[in-house]
């Protein structure tokens, strides 16, 4: 294991809109382009950001705070990009 593969990052985003199918698709497609495991947490529920069905299953609503966590070589970039995408939904 190289040190870079153990990078972890985390950020919080307040959702401007409900995380419905279309924004979930956008976030998931973006998440899949990074070399990192990315997780979204909404309260006690978590979802792999690369799974559109899991992200939709969060049922996250406007005004809710989501936590974006990533682990892997591109954890920092992934958290920045996914947080930005969530903030634009």
């Amino acid at each position: 294991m190289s040190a870079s593969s153990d990078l972890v990052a985390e950020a919080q985003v307040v959702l401007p809109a409900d995380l419905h199918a279309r924004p979930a698709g956008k976030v998931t497609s973006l998440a899949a382009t990074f070399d990192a495991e990315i997780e979204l947490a909404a309260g006690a529920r978590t979802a792999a950001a690369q799974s559109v069905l899991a992200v939709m299953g969060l049922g996250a609503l406007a005004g809710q705070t989501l936590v974006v966590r990533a682990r892997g070589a591109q954890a920092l970039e992934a958290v920045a990009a996914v947080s930005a995408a969530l903030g634009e939904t």
Partner: protein
Amino acid sequence: MTDRRTVGIVLISHSRPLAEGAAELAAQVSGPDVLVVGVGGTDDGRLGTSLDALTRAVEKVAAGAGVLVIPDLGSSVLTARSYLADSDDLPDAVRLVDTAFVEGAVAAAVAAAAGLTLDAVATAAEEARDVRKL
């Protein structure tokens, strides 16, 4: 992200409106970079499946990155199987996956939009079988 060729997706059902509706939904979620086509009904407009229609649909979405075929039930599966077995001259790498029709289509379309390989798109589609919605 340099290669924008994406995996194409064909949904095959007995019912053309069902297949086209699922394709419309999947395409809405994935955005415009992915070709998703729904095909269903017999050539004379009844419920059923058509090998010719499936062949045309696969040709339509083939862009060099592979094509994923998602069947609904019964003869959709048989038609897709005979297409794979009998076509000597497939337009692209074609994979048939065993998954939930709507959920698999959405998961596959989003994975394809990310530029993932045919294998990865097929895996995303298959994982849809195990995702709970409640």
